[in-house]
Protein backbone atom coordinates (compact mmCIF):
# COMPACT_ATOMS: atom_id res chain seq x y z
CA UNK A 1 0.00 0.00 0.00
CA UNK A 2 2.79 2.36 1.02
CA UNK A 3 4.67 1.40 -2.13
CA UNK A 4 1.64 2.09 -4.30
CA UNK A 5 1.25 5.55 -2.74
CA UNK A 6 4.92 6.25 -3.33
CA UNK A 7 4.57 5.29 -6.98
CA UNK A 8 1.53 7.56 -7.30
CA UNK A 9 3.41 10.51 -5.84
CA UNK A 10 6.44 9.83 -7.98
CA UNK A 11 4.25 9.54 -11.07
CA UNK A 12 2.50 12.82 -10.33
CA UNK A 13 5.83 14.56 -9.77
CA UNK A 14 7.12 13.20 -13.05
CA UNK A 15 4.03 14.34 -14.88
CA UNK A 16 4.38 17.81 -13.40
CA UNK A 17 8.04 17.99 -14.46
CA UNK A 18 7.21 16.88 -17.98
CA UNK A 19 4.35 19.36 -18.14
CA UNK A 20 6.73 22.10 -17.05
CA UNK A 21 9.22 21.11 -19.72
CA UNK A 22 6.44 20.90 -22.27
CA UNK A 23 5.02 24.27 -21.45
CA UNK A 24 8.35 26.04 -21.56
CA UNK A 25 9.16 24.22 -24.78
CA UNK A 26 5.94 24.98 -26.57
CA UNK A 27 6.09 28.54 -25.82
CA UNK A 28 7.95 31.11 -25.55
CA UNK A 29 11.65 30.66 -25.31
CA UNK A 30 12.09 32.31 -28.66
CA UNK A 31 11.61 36.06 -29.02
CA UNK A 32 8.87 37.55 -31.14
CA UNK A 33 9.44 40.22 -33.78
CA UNK A 34 10.80 43.42 -32.37
CA UNK A 35 12.08 42.03 -29.08
CA UNK A 36 15.59 42.35 -30.45
CA UNK A 37 16.17 45.65 -32.26
CA UNK A 38 15.43 45.24 -35.96
CA UNK A 39 14.87 41.49 -35.86
CA UNK A 40 11.70 39.93 -37.29
CA UNK A 41 10.66 36.36 -36.56
CA UNK A 42 9.97 34.87 -39.98
CA UNK A 43 8.82 31.35 -39.14
CA UNK A 44 6.78 29.50 -36.59
CA UNK A 45 8.68 27.85 -33.77
CA UNK A 46 9.47 24.22 -34.56
CA UNK A 47 9.84 21.87 -31.61
CA UNK A 48 11.52 18.47 -31.33
CA UNK A 49 11.53 16.08 -28.40
CA UNK A 50 14.67 14.09 -27.68
CA UNK A 51 13.23 11.16 -29.63
CA UNK A 52 12.46 13.37 -32.60
CA UNK A 53 15.69 15.32 -32.64
CA UNK A 54 17.29 13.15 -35.33
CA UNK A 55 14.69 14.48 -37.74
CA UNK A 56 16.20 17.90 -37.28
CA UNK A 57 19.94 17.30 -36.91
CA UNK A 58 20.42 13.74 -38.15
CA UNK A 59 22.86 11.52 -36.28
CA UNK A 60 24.26 14.52 -34.46
CA UNK A 61 21.21 14.11 -32.21
CA UNK A 62 23.03 11.28 -30.45
CA UNK A 63 25.52 13.73 -28.96
CA UNK A 64 22.72 15.87 -27.54
CA UNK A 65 20.82 12.86 -26.24
CA UNK A 66 23.90 11.64 -24.39
CA UNK A 67 24.18 15.07 -22.79
CA UNK A 68 20.55 14.92 -21.65
CA UNK A 69 18.57 16.94 -24.16
CA UNK A 70 14.87 17.19 -23.34
CA UNK A 71 13.66 19.29 -26.24
CA UNK A 72 14.93 21.54 -29.03
CA UNK A 73 13.23 24.63 -30.40
CA UNK A 74 14.11 26.50 -33.55
CA UNK A 75 12.87 29.47 -35.54
CA UNK A 76 14.06 31.72 -38.35
CA UNK A 77 14.71 35.45 -38.13
CA UNK A 78 15.57 38.31 -40.43
CA UNK A 79 17.07 41.75 -39.92
CA UNK A 80 17.21 43.65 -43.20
CA UNK A 81 19.39 41.49 -45.47
CA UNK A 82 20.67 39.31 -42.65
CA UNK A 83 18.92 35.96 -42.18
CA UNK A 84 19.46 33.85 -39.10
CA UNK A 85 18.28 30.75 -37.30
CA UNK A 86 18.00 30.36 -33.53
CA UNK A 87 18.19 26.93 -31.87
CA UNK A 88 17.45 26.49 -28.17
CA UNK A 89 18.35 23.10 -26.67
CA UNK A 90 16.63 22.47 -23.36
CA UNK A 91 18.78 20.08 -21.33
CA UNK A 92 17.98 18.15 -18.16
CA UNK A 93 20.51 20.20 -16.24
CA UNK A 94 23.15 22.88 -16.57
CA UNK A 95 25.95 20.31 -16.63
CA UNK A 96 24.56 18.82 -19.85
CA UNK A 97 24.40 22.19 -21.57
CA UNK A 98 27.89 23.05 -20.38
CA UNK A 99 29.35 19.74 -21.57
CA UNK A 100 28.11 20.40 -25.11
CA UNK A 101 29.45 23.95 -25.02
CA UNK A 102 32.85 22.90 -23.69
CA UNK A 103 33.20 20.14 -26.30
CA UNK A 104 33.14 22.60 -29.20
CA UNK A 105 36.29 24.32 -30.49
CA UNK A 106 36.67 27.96 -29.53
CA UNK A 107 39.24 28.86 -32.18
CA UNK A 108 38.28 31.95 -34.12
CA UNK A 109 35.77 33.14 -31.56
CA UNK A 110 35.73 35.85 -28.95
CA UNK A 111 33.83 35.88 -25.67
CA UNK A 112 30.55 37.76 -25.52
CA UNK A 113 28.54 39.11 -22.64
CA UNK A 114 25.47 36.96 -22.79
CA UNK A 115 24.44 33.95 -20.70
CA UNK A 116 26.83 32.12 -18.40
CA UNK A 117 29.41 31.75 -21.17
CA UNK A 118 29.37 32.61 -24.86
CA UNK A 119 31.45 32.44 -28.03
CA UNK A 120 30.89 34.90 -30.81
CA UNK A 121 32.11 34.14 -34.33
CA UNK A 122 31.75 36.30 -37.43
CA UNK A 123 28.58 34.49 -38.47
CA UNK A 124 27.40 32.62 -35.40
CA UNK A 125 27.06 32.76 -31.66
CA UNK A 126 26.67 30.02 -29.07
CA UNK A 127 25.94 30.50 -25.39
CA UNK A 128 24.86 28.55 -22.34
CA UNK A 129 22.61 29.68 -19.60
CA UNK A 130 21.66 27.18 -16.91
CA UNK A 131 20.12 24.15 -18.65
CA UNK A 132 19.89 25.90 -22.03
CA UNK A 133 22.31 25.78 -24.94
CA UNK A 134 21.53 28.44 -27.54
CA UNK A 135 23.00 28.54 -31.03
CA UNK A 136 22.42 31.38 -33.48
CA UNK A 137 23.57 31.04 -37.08
CA UNK A 138 23.64 33.81 -39.69
CA UNK A 139 23.44 32.84 -43.35
CA UNK A 140 25.28 35.89 -44.61
CA UNK A 141 28.53 37.45 -43.55
CA UNK A 142 27.86 41.14 -43.18
CA UNK A 143 29.78 43.93 -41.50
CA UNK A 144 27.40 44.25 -38.56
CA UNK A 145 26.48 40.59 -38.20
CA UNK A 146 28.27 39.86 -34.90
CA UNK A 147 26.63 42.79 -33.11
CA UNK A 148 23.24 41.93 -34.60
CA UNK A 149 23.58 38.31 -33.45
CA UNK A 150 24.53 39.48 -29.99
CA UNK A 151 21.40 41.62 -29.80
CA UNK A 152 19.28 38.65 -30.82
CA UNK A 153 21.06 36.45 -28.28
CA UNK A 154 20.25 38.90 -25.50
CA UNK A 155 16.58 38.81 -26.46
CA UNK A 156 16.68 35.00 -26.25
CA UNK A 157 18.42 35.22 -22.89
CA UNK A 158 15.68 37.46 -21.58
CA UNK A 159 13.18 34.79 -22.53
CA UNK A 160 15.06 32.11 -20.66
CA UNK A 161 14.62 33.89 -17.34
CA UNK A 162 16.79 33.51 -14.31
Amino acid at each position, binding site marked *: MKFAKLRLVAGAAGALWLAACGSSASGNLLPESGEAPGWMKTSDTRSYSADELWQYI*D*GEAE*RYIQAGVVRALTADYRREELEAKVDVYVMKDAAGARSLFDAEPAAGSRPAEVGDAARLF*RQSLVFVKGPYLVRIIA*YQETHGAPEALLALARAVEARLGE
Partner: protein
Amino acid sequence: MGSDRRVSRRSFSRWSLAGLLLPAGACRAGVEQRGVAGTSSPPERSKVVVARDEKVRSGRSRLDEARVLDLLDRSLQALYGCDSPSEAWRRVAGLGKVIGLKVNCLAGKGASTHRVLVEAVCERLQQAGVPAKNLIVWDRLSSDLESAGFRINERGNKPRCIGNDIYGYDSELMAYGRVGSLVCNTLTRRCDAVINLPVLKDHSIAGVTIALKNFFGAIHNPNKYHLNVGDPYVADAYMLEPIRTKARLHICDAFNVQYEGGPSYLPQWSWPYNGLLVSADPVALDSIGRRIIEEKRAAEGFPSLKDQKREPTYIATAADKDHRLGIADPGRIDVVEV
Protein backbone atom coordinates in the same frame (compact mmCIF):
# COMPACT_ATOMS: atom_id res chain seq x y z
CA MET B 1 22.59 23.89 -74.88
CA GLY B 2 25.94 24.66 -73.46
CA SER B 3 29.09 24.93 -75.43
CA ASP B 4 30.59 21.71 -76.70
CA ARG B 5 34.17 22.18 -75.81
CA ARG B 6 36.95 19.98 -74.65
CA VAL B 7 37.90 19.90 -71.02
CA SER B 8 40.85 22.05 -70.10
CA ARG B 9 43.91 20.24 -68.87
CA ARG B 10 45.16 22.78 -66.43
CA SER B 11 46.28 22.32 -62.88
CA PHE B 12 46.80 18.59 -62.84
CA SER B 13 50.02 18.75 -60.90
CA ARG B 14 48.65 20.27 -57.72
CA TRP B 15 46.70 17.28 -56.57
CA SER B 16 48.37 15.62 -53.61
CA LEU B 17 46.65 12.26 -53.46
CA ALA B 18 48.32 9.01 -54.21
CA GLY B 19 46.16 8.23 -57.24
CA LEU B 20 47.30 8.77 -60.79
CA LEU B 21 46.42 12.03 -62.42
CA LEU B 22 45.11 11.54 -65.89
CA PRO B 23 44.30 14.04 -68.61
CA ALA B 24 40.54 14.44 -68.67
CA GLY B 25 39.98 13.18 -72.19
CA ALA B 26 42.25 10.19 -71.93
CA CYS B 27 40.22 7.93 -69.67
CA ARG B 28 37.29 6.25 -71.34
CA ALA B 29 37.08 2.94 -69.54
CA GLY B 30 35.63 1.78 -66.30
CA VAL B 31 32.84 4.23 -65.70
CA GLU B 32 29.98 1.95 -66.72
CA GLN B 33 31.25 -0.85 -64.52
CA ARG B 34 30.84 1.31 -61.47
CA GLY B 35 27.12 1.47 -62.04
CA VAL B 36 26.78 -2.21 -61.12
CA ALA B 37 27.67 -1.92 -57.49
CA GLY B 38 27.84 -4.98 -55.33
CA THR B 39 28.81 -7.33 -58.13
CA SER B 40 31.46 -9.98 -57.68
CA SER B 41 33.92 -8.48 -60.14
CA PRO B 42 34.66 -4.87 -59.26
CA PRO B 43 36.96 -2.96 -61.60
CA GLU B 44 40.62 -2.51 -60.82
CA ARG B 45 40.45 1.27 -60.66
CA SER B 46 37.89 4.02 -60.23
CA LYS B 47 37.76 7.61 -61.34
CA VAL B 48 36.79 10.71 -59.38
CA VAL B 49 36.60 14.05 -61.13
CA VAL B 50 37.39 17.10 -59.01
CA ALA B 51 36.20 20.31 -60.67
CA ARG B 52 36.78 23.72 -59.12
CA ASP B 53 36.16 27.30 -60.13
CA GLU B 54 37.31 30.08 -57.82
CA LYS B 55 35.03 32.50 -59.66
CA VAL B 56 31.88 30.42 -59.32
CA ARG B 57 30.35 32.96 -56.96
CA SER B 58 28.87 36.21 -58.10
CA GLY B 59 28.81 38.57 -55.17
CA ARG B 60 29.38 37.51 -51.62
CA SER B 61 27.88 34.03 -51.64
CA ARG B 62 25.52 33.57 -54.56
CA LEU B 63 26.52 30.96 -57.12
CA ASP B 64 26.83 32.04 -60.74
CA GLU B 65 24.45 29.84 -62.74
CA ALA B 66 26.50 29.90 -65.95
CA ARG B 67 29.67 28.90 -64.14
CA VAL B 68 27.89 26.09 -62.31
CA LEU B 69 26.70 24.77 -65.68
CA ASP B 70 30.23 25.01 -67.01
CA LEU B 71 31.64 23.11 -64.02
CA LEU B 72 29.03 20.40 -64.50
CA ASP B 73 29.78 20.12 -68.21
CA ARG B 74 33.50 19.82 -67.62
CA SER B 75 32.99 17.26 -64.87
CA LEU B 76 30.71 14.96 -66.85
CA GLN B 77 32.82 15.20 -69.97
CA ALA B 78 35.89 14.24 -67.96
CA LEU B 79 34.12 11.43 -66.14
CA TYR B 80 32.83 9.74 -69.27
CA GLY B 81 35.82 10.66 -71.40
CA CYS B 82 33.59 12.10 -74.10
CA ASP B 83 34.53 14.54 -76.81
CA SER B 84 31.81 16.98 -75.82
CA PRO B 85 29.60 17.78 -72.82
CA SER B 86 26.44 17.10 -74.80
CA GLU B 87 27.65 13.57 -75.52
CA ALA B 88 28.29 13.08 -71.81
CA TRP B 89 24.83 14.33 -70.90
CA ARG B 90 23.22 12.00 -73.41
CA ARG B 91 24.89 9.16 -71.55
CA VAL B 92 23.56 10.45 -68.26
CA ALA B 93 20.09 10.81 -69.77
CA GLY B 94 20.30 7.17 -70.82
CA LEU B 95 20.59 5.94 -67.24
CA GLY B 96 16.83 5.53 -66.99
CA LYS B 97 13.47 6.73 -68.20
CA VAL B 98 12.57 8.36 -64.89
CA ILE B 99 15.61 9.80 -63.13
CA GLY B 100 15.63 10.71 -59.45
CA LEU B 101 17.91 13.38 -58.04
CA LYS B 102 18.66 12.58 -54.40
CA VAL B 103 19.68 15.80 -52.71
CA ASN B 104 20.73 16.43 -49.10
CA CYS B 105 18.76 19.22 -47.48
CA LEU B 106 18.75 18.14 -43.84
CA ALA B 107 20.87 21.09 -42.73
CA GLY B 108 18.72 23.71 -44.42
CA LYS B 109 20.39 26.77 -45.87
CA GLY B 110 24.17 26.82 -45.84
CA ALA B 111 25.02 23.11 -45.89
CA SER B 112 22.53 21.58 -48.32
CA THR B 113 22.68 20.72 -51.99
CA HIS B 114 22.44 24.03 -53.80
CA ARG B 115 19.25 24.58 -55.78
CA VAL B 116 21.31 26.19 -58.55
CA LEU B 117 23.21 22.93 -59.01
CA VAL B 118 20.03 20.84 -59.11
CA GLU B 119 18.44 23.19 -61.59
CA ALA B 120 21.55 22.96 -63.76
CA VAL B 121 21.40 19.15 -63.77
CA CYS B 122 17.70 19.26 -64.62
CA GLU B 123 18.33 21.73 -67.43
CA ARG B 124 21.04 19.62 -69.01
CA LEU B 125 19.00 16.41 -68.70
CA GLN B 126 16.03 18.05 -70.39
CA GLN B 127 18.29 19.30 -73.15
CA ALA B 128 19.51 15.72 -73.51
CA GLY B 129 15.96 14.51 -74.02
CA VAL B 130 14.53 13.66 -70.59
CA PRO B 131 11.02 15.14 -70.17
CA ALA B 132 10.79 17.44 -67.15
CA LYS B 133 8.05 15.31 -65.59
CA ASN B 134 10.44 12.35 -65.63
CA LEU B 135 12.84 14.10 -63.26
CA ILE B 136 12.18 13.73 -59.52
CA VAL B 137 14.13 15.80 -57.02
CA TRP B 138 13.68 14.10 -53.67
CA ASP B 139 14.84 13.95 -50.09
CA ARG B 140 13.68 12.72 -46.71
CA LEU B 141 11.11 15.39 -45.90
CA SER B 142 9.39 18.07 -47.95
CA SER B 143 10.16 20.50 -45.14
CA ASP B 144 13.88 19.73 -45.56
CA LEU B 145 13.64 20.60 -49.24
CA GLU B 146 11.76 23.80 -48.52
CA SER B 147 14.26 24.82 -45.85
CA ALA B 148 16.99 24.65 -48.50
CA GLY B 149 15.04 26.80 -50.93
CA PHE B 150 13.32 24.16 -53.09
CA ARG B 151 9.64 24.40 -53.95
CA ILE B 152 7.52 21.27 -53.61
CA ASN B 153 5.93 20.22 -56.91
CA GLU B 154 3.98 17.04 -57.55
CA ARG B 155 2.53 17.65 -61.01
CA GLY B 156 2.63 19.64 -64.22
CA ASN B 157 5.38 19.96 -66.78
CA LYS B 158 8.15 20.80 -64.35
CA PRO B 159 10.51 18.43 -62.56
CA ARG B 160 8.87 16.88 -59.53
CA CYS B 161 10.19 17.92 -56.12
CA ILE B 162 9.01 15.86 -53.17
CA GLY B 163 9.91 14.55 -49.76
CA ASN B 164 9.49 10.94 -48.72
CA ASP B 165 6.57 12.04 -46.57
CA ILE B 166 4.52 12.50 -49.77
CA TYR B 167 4.91 9.07 -51.41
CA GLY B 168 5.73 7.19 -48.21
CA TYR B 169 7.75 4.01 -47.75
CA ASP B 170 7.45 0.58 -49.30
CA SER B 171 5.65 -1.89 -47.02
CA GLU B 172 8.26 -4.60 -47.56
CA LEU B 173 11.12 -4.62 -45.08
CA MET B 174 14.48 -4.89 -46.83
CA ALA B 175 17.52 -6.18 -45.02
CA TYR B 176 21.25 -6.54 -45.49
CA GLY B 177 23.78 -7.26 -42.78
CA ARG B 178 22.77 -5.31 -39.71
CA VAL B 179 20.28 -3.08 -41.50
CA GLY B 180 16.56 -3.70 -41.80
CA SER B 181 14.59 -0.80 -43.26
CA LEU B 182 11.67 0.35 -45.33
CA VAL B 183 12.85 2.09 -48.48
CA CYS B 184 11.00 5.12 -49.83
CA ASN B 185 8.54 4.59 -52.65
CA THR B 186 10.11 7.37 -54.68
CA LEU B 187 13.13 5.16 -55.07
CA THR B 188 11.48 1.73 -55.22
CA ARG B 189 8.52 2.57 -57.46
CA ARG B 190 9.02 5.87 -59.23
CA CYS B 191 12.66 6.09 -60.33
CA ASP B 192 14.54 3.87 -62.77
CA ALA B 193 17.86 5.45 -61.88
CA VAL B 194 19.16 7.97 -59.37
CA ILE B 195 21.73 10.71 -59.57
CA ASN B 196 23.05 11.23 -56.07
CA LEU B 197 23.73 14.87 -55.15
CA PRO B 198 25.25 14.81 -51.65
CA VAL B 199 27.15 17.55 -49.85
CA LEU B 200 30.77 17.29 -48.69
CA LYS B 201 30.48 17.41 -44.91
CA ASP B 202 32.05 16.46 -41.64
CA HIS B 203 29.77 14.39 -39.39
CA SER B 204 30.09 14.54 -35.63
CA ILE B 205 29.22 10.85 -35.23
CA ALA B 206 30.07 9.11 -38.52
CA GLY B 207 33.18 11.14 -39.41
CA VAL B 208 31.97 12.31 -42.79
CA THR B 209 28.72 12.24 -44.71
CA ILE B 210 29.10 12.28 -48.48
CA ALA B 211 27.79 9.90 -51.17
CA LEU B 212 27.25 6.61 -49.33
CA LYS B 213 25.55 8.07 -46.28
CA ASN B 214 23.27 10.30 -48.31
CA PHE B 215 21.03 7.28 -48.84
CA PHE B 216 20.17 7.26 -45.16
CA GLY B 217 17.63 9.72 -46.54
CA ALA B 218 15.98 6.88 -48.46
CA ILE B 219 15.12 4.71 -45.45
CA HIS B 220 12.62 5.16 -42.65
CA ASN B 221 14.91 4.56 -39.66
CA PRO B 222 18.36 6.14 -40.18
CA ASN B 223 18.46 7.16 -36.52
CA LYS B 224 19.12 3.52 -35.65
CA TYR B 225 22.34 3.34 -37.63
CA HIS B 226 24.81 5.79 -36.14
CA LEU B 227 26.34 3.31 -33.71
CA ASN B 228 30.04 2.45 -34.08
CA VAL B 229 30.70 5.45 -36.33
CA GLY B 230 28.08 4.13 -38.75
CA ASP B 231 30.14 1.03 -39.52
CA PRO B 232 28.86 -1.24 -41.09
CA TYR B 233 25.44 0.39 -41.19
CA VAL B 234 26.19 2.96 -43.91
CA ALA B 235 27.60 0.26 -46.20
CA ASP B 236 24.83 -2.19 -45.32
CA ALA B 237 22.10 0.36 -46.06
CA TYR B 238 23.65 1.07 -49.45
CA MET B 239 23.46 -2.65 -50.21
CA LEU B 240 19.66 -2.56 -50.12
CA GLU B 241 18.68 -3.51 -53.63
CA PRO B 242 16.94 -0.34 -54.84
CA ILE B 243 19.81 1.83 -53.62
CA ARG B 244 22.60 -0.42 -54.86
CA THR B 245 21.16 -0.89 -58.33
CA LYS B 246 19.62 2.50 -59.05
CA ALA B 247 22.23 4.95 -57.77
CA ARG B 248 24.28 5.34 -60.93
CA LEU B 249 26.05 8.67 -60.74
CA HIS B 250 27.26 10.83 -57.85
CA ILE B 251 27.68 14.59 -58.16
CA CYS B 252 28.86 15.92 -54.83
CA ASP B 253 28.14 19.57 -54.08
CA ALA B 254 31.41 20.87 -52.67
CA PHE B 255 30.76 24.57 -53.15
CA ASN B 256 30.83 24.85 -49.35
CA VAL B 257 32.65 22.15 -47.37
CA GLN B 258 31.68 21.71 -43.72
CA TYR B 259 34.99 20.45 -42.34
CA GLU B 260 34.07 20.55 -38.63
CA GLY B 261 30.81 20.66 -36.70
CA GLY B 262 28.75 18.85 -39.33
CA PRO B 263 26.30 17.73 -40.44
CA SER B 264 24.67 20.98 -39.31
CA TYR B 265 25.72 24.25 -40.89
CA LEU B 266 28.23 26.07 -38.74
CA PRO B 267 29.63 28.95 -40.78
CA GLN B 268 32.84 29.28 -38.77
CA TRP B 269 33.94 25.87 -40.08
CA SER B 270 32.49 26.10 -43.57
CA TRP B 271 35.04 26.40 -46.38
CA PRO B 272 34.24 27.83 -49.84
CA TYR B 273 35.83 25.00 -51.82
CA ASN B 274 33.93 26.12 -54.94
CA GLY B 275 33.83 22.73 -56.57
CA LEU B 276 32.20 19.46 -57.48
CA LEU B 277 33.31 15.87 -56.98
CA VAL B 278 31.87 13.55 -59.59
CA SER B 279 32.11 9.77 -59.88
CA ALA B 280 30.15 6.66 -60.70
CA ASP B 281 31.78 5.03 -57.65
CA PRO B 282 30.36 6.25 -54.32
CA VAL B 283 33.13 4.58 -52.32
CA ALA B 284 35.89 6.24 -54.33
CA LEU B 285 34.11 9.57 -54.09
CA ASP B 286 33.80 9.23 -50.30
CA SER B 287 37.45 8.24 -50.04
CA ILE B 288 38.59 11.35 -51.91
CA GLY B 289 36.06 13.56 -50.15
CA ARG B 290 37.20 12.32 -46.76
CA ARG B 291 40.79 13.15 -47.71
CA ILE B 292 39.83 16.69 -48.70
CA ILE B 293 38.12 17.19 -45.33
CA GLU B 294 41.08 15.71 -43.44
CA GLU B 295 43.55 17.94 -45.27
CA LYS B 296 41.52 21.04 -44.48
CA ARG B 297 41.12 19.98 -40.85
CA ALA B 298 44.88 19.57 -40.55
CA ALA B 299 45.49 22.94 -42.18
CA GLU B 300 43.14 24.58 -39.68
CA GLY B 301 44.69 22.84 -36.69
CA PHE B 302 41.94 20.32 -36.00
CA PRO B 303 42.78 16.75 -35.00
CA SER B 304 42.26 13.98 -37.52
CA LEU B 305 38.95 12.14 -37.54
CA LYS B 306 40.77 9.06 -36.30
CA ASP B 307 42.19 10.98 -33.34
CA GLN B 308 38.68 12.15 -32.56
CA LYS B 309 37.50 8.53 -32.59
CA ARG B 310 35.23 9.08 -35.52
CA GLU B 311 37.24 7.76 -38.45
CA PRO B 312 34.73 6.86 -41.18
CA THR B 313 35.67 3.19 -41.36
CA TYR B 314 32.42 2.44 -43.15
CA ILE B 315 34.09 3.61 -46.38
CA ALA B 316 36.54 0.69 -46.29
CA THR B 317 33.73 -1.63 -45.26
CA ALA B 318 31.78 -0.59 -48.36
CA ALA B 319 34.70 -1.83 -50.45
CA ASP B 320 35.19 -5.16 -48.66
CA LYS B 321 34.33 -8.60 -50.01
CA ASP B 322 30.88 -8.55 -48.46
CA HIS B 323 29.90 -5.28 -50.10
CA ARG B 324 32.04 -4.57 -53.20
CA LEU B 325 30.40 -1.20 -53.69
CA GLY B 326 33.52 0.41 -55.08
CA ILE B 327 37.14 1.21 -54.41
CA ALA B 328 38.31 2.82 -51.18
CA ASP B 329 42.09 2.61 -51.69
CA PRO B 330 43.30 6.06 -52.90
CA GLY B 331 46.10 4.32 -54.74
CA ARG B 332 43.54 2.74 -57.04
CA ILE B 333 41.56 5.90 -57.67
CA ASP B 334 42.32 8.12 -60.65
CA VAL B 335 41.69 11.69 -59.60
CA VAL B 336 41.02 13.87 -62.61
CA GLU B 337 41.20 17.55 -61.87
CA VAL B 338 39.45 19.89 -64.30
